[in-house]
């Protein structure tokens, strides 16, 4: 399917963010805010963890 790990992460983040935005908020503005926050937090955290683990390949 997707060859890139990064694309996999983006798709997964998108789906989870949309899901939680609609699950936790009822207004459009709130959903947008939660969705963007969640997506940014997940992407940032993943990249940070990935680069922290970079010197330890196995």
């Amino acid at each position, binding site marked *: 399917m*997707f060859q890139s790990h990064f694309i996999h992460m983006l798709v997964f983040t998108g789906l989870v963010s949309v899901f939680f935005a*609609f699950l936790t908020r009822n207004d459009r503005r709130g959903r947008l805010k939660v969705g963007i926050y969640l997506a940014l937090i997940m992407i940032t955290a993943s990249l940070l963890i990935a680069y922290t683990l970079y010197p330890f390949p196995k």
Partner: protein
Amino acid sequence: MIERMSWTKFKRSLISMILTWLIPGIGHLYLGKKGRAVVFFIVVHLTFILGFVADGRFFLVDQRQPFMSYLQTATNMAAGPLDIVGRVYVYGSPAYFLPGEEEARSSFLMTRMRERMKSQGSAYGTAYLLTAGLMNLLLMLDVFDISIGRKE
């Protein structure tokens, strides 16, 4: 303070939870939340389909590690009939238990499982499949909250 739930509320919550398990999002439609129903239907189905296409693993109960394997299998099962259809396609039957060690060597089920695990995207697929199940579990709790009036 614990309040007793009326029969109507109990029935409504039970029906909505069963509907959600059967088809993700339909429980919300039953409760009149059309917008949310459409989004949840698309998101959960898309997550499941991506997991299936990426050769995600449908977990089987393994008696050698019962705790984890029961949890993993239950999470898969939370996706409802989608999980059953996936298992029938992959294993040839709705299998939920790993065969014993002797049978496992020649088992079709084990061969199919190994083939999928060898695939490049299998780890991602497995994450997608488990996420679809967990999402549907949360949706069942959400429709319960909505139906008893705890949430809008």
